[in-house]
């Protein structure tokens, strides 16, 4: 039984000046899977991530998400389709409270141009926001100013914001960057839990992290697909090992 792919990338090229960040990449992603995109630095992982999430428009080729052609679609519309992403560099609303950060993500359709309702009276939304924060372990810090929290906490907040969007697909760009081993473990556990309910596509450069949790691993190198297989197959792949030699962390 093969469902329609949730994401599809067809013959995508991304070129900056004379340099090709992605060369003729074609991939399809099935719903419900946890896919990891790995590769050494400069392989094109971030570029691919940005093409998938819609923040970079490809020089050539097309991108489809949830049945829609998103190649030229503005970023905010892509989010509304059900695609949530996290940023490589922590990106929250620093001067606002943790709770407000999540509530903004939650405001979604219908509330965006509400100029009249008092936010403080929106009990249902506040409760839902706290629920999401409980999921990432930040429910005891809802009044904290986001910018004053530790790096790991801010990453968790970002995850909460992504979840608050109730996405069908979650795109995560190096979610454990800059985290301690303990924080990394917590984050990976969280991701596995989330992947049970939705499609997750993960970009990482630490191969070890993703081996145990992924349904599928895609290895990029110099803007092209080097390997595309289940974890066992990737582990056995000599090409991959050669490329990663000395870069495994």
């Amino acid at each position, binding site marked *: 039984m093969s469902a329609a792919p949730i994401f599809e990338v067809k013959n995508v090229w991304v070129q900056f000046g004379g340099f090709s960040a992605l060369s003729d990449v074609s991939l399809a992603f099935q719903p419900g899977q946890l896919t990891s995109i790995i590769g050494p630095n400069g392989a094109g992982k971030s570029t691919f991530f940005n093409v998938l*999430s819609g*923040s970079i428009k490809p020089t050539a080729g097309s991108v489809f998400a949830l049945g829609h052609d998103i190649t030229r679609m*503005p*970023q*905010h519309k892509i*989010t*509304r389709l059900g695609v*949530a*992403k996290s*940023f490589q560099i922590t*990106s*929250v*609303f*620093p*001067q*606002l409270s943790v709770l*407000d950060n999540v*509530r*903004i*993500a939650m*405001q*979604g*359709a219908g*509330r*965006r*141009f*509400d*100029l*009249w*309702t*008092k*936010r*403080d009276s*929106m009990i249902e939304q506040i409760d839902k926001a706290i629920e999401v924060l409980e999921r990432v372990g930040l429910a005891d810090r809802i009044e904290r100013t986001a910018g004053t929290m530790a790096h790991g906490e801010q990453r968790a907040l970002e995850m909460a*914001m992504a979840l608050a*969007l109730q996405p069908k697909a979650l795109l995560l760009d190096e979610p454990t960057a800059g985290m301690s081993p303990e924080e990394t473990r917590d984050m990976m556990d969280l991701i596995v839990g989330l992947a049970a309910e939705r499609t997750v596509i993960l970009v990482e450069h630490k191969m070890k992290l993703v081996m145990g949790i992924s349904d599928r691993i895609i290895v990029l190198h110099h803007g092209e697909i080097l390997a595309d297989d289940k974890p066992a197959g990737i582990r056995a792949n000599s090409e991959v090992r050669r490329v990663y030699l000395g870069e495994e962390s």
Partner: protein
Amino acid sequence: MTAITAQASSTSWFTLLARRRVALAILALAALLFVAPYEALATNIIIYGLFALGCNLLLGYTGLLSFGQAAFFGLGAYGCGLSIVHGGAPVLVALAIGVVSAIFGAALIGAMVIRSRGIYFAMVTLALGQCVSAILYEADFWTGGENGLRGIAASVANFGVFKVNLVDPTQKFFFVLAFVALALILVERLLASPFGITLEAIRENEKRVIACGYDAQATKWLVFVLSGAICGLAGALYAIHLSIVPIDIVNYHNSGLVVMMSLLGGINTFFGPFIGAAIFLMLEDVVSKFTSHWQLVVGLLFIALVLFFPRGVWGTLLARMRSRS
């Protein structure tokens, strides 16, 4: 034990007051009438305070620095004045026409500038504001051009059930205050709404807001129009206040002044713009009696604020009160 209870109650006094900030603001502004040396200055202060409030909706809350808000102040003033001079409109209708004129202007200009980011935005708004000024200047058959619009006969405001005598400075002050109070209530409501927090989110991290599914351009356009409406109301009230509209209220000098007032008060605060307007205008009143070089003081004030005192007077005060509670 005493220390903890004392702390607990001081948290509540600050929060309690903060929750009633609109009422307190209106009271403070009403009291201004008795603090200011003469009524016209008090009226001027609350008008410019309103103007600065409109400017700060963009600057402090959304993070957009516009150097062209005087265009909407001017459209409000001319719209109101022209409808009285050439159309014989009653005061209340004239005010409404002024606000609507400003809204049209802001909608049009907003659509042009909203794609410009940050520093580019400041430049483009200044230039477009100057464009409005040039148009109003050249249309001298209606606007009076260089001489300004004269003879705005606004002696009575008819509310139906009662009349306000606008020739009496005290009654005029309270008439203006009524509209300022209305604006304060509406702005407070706006800031407390989902849209209000969206504005702050745009200021904090526009890319993030877009990634959360918001059309940031549309939001910015809307707040630009709302700001224009507030600035337009201030301008319309100004026309009633002075009974003339001088042409130089539309140029970028005035736009800059209102940015300065917001900064002086504190752009991160709700009431800062009014504090800034009060300090600035009262300072001008005093300093101008001693020297004709007030502009130098203005320039140095700008520089000093930016370099040493970016939080402004009210902003610094609030921060201290908050940390103590």
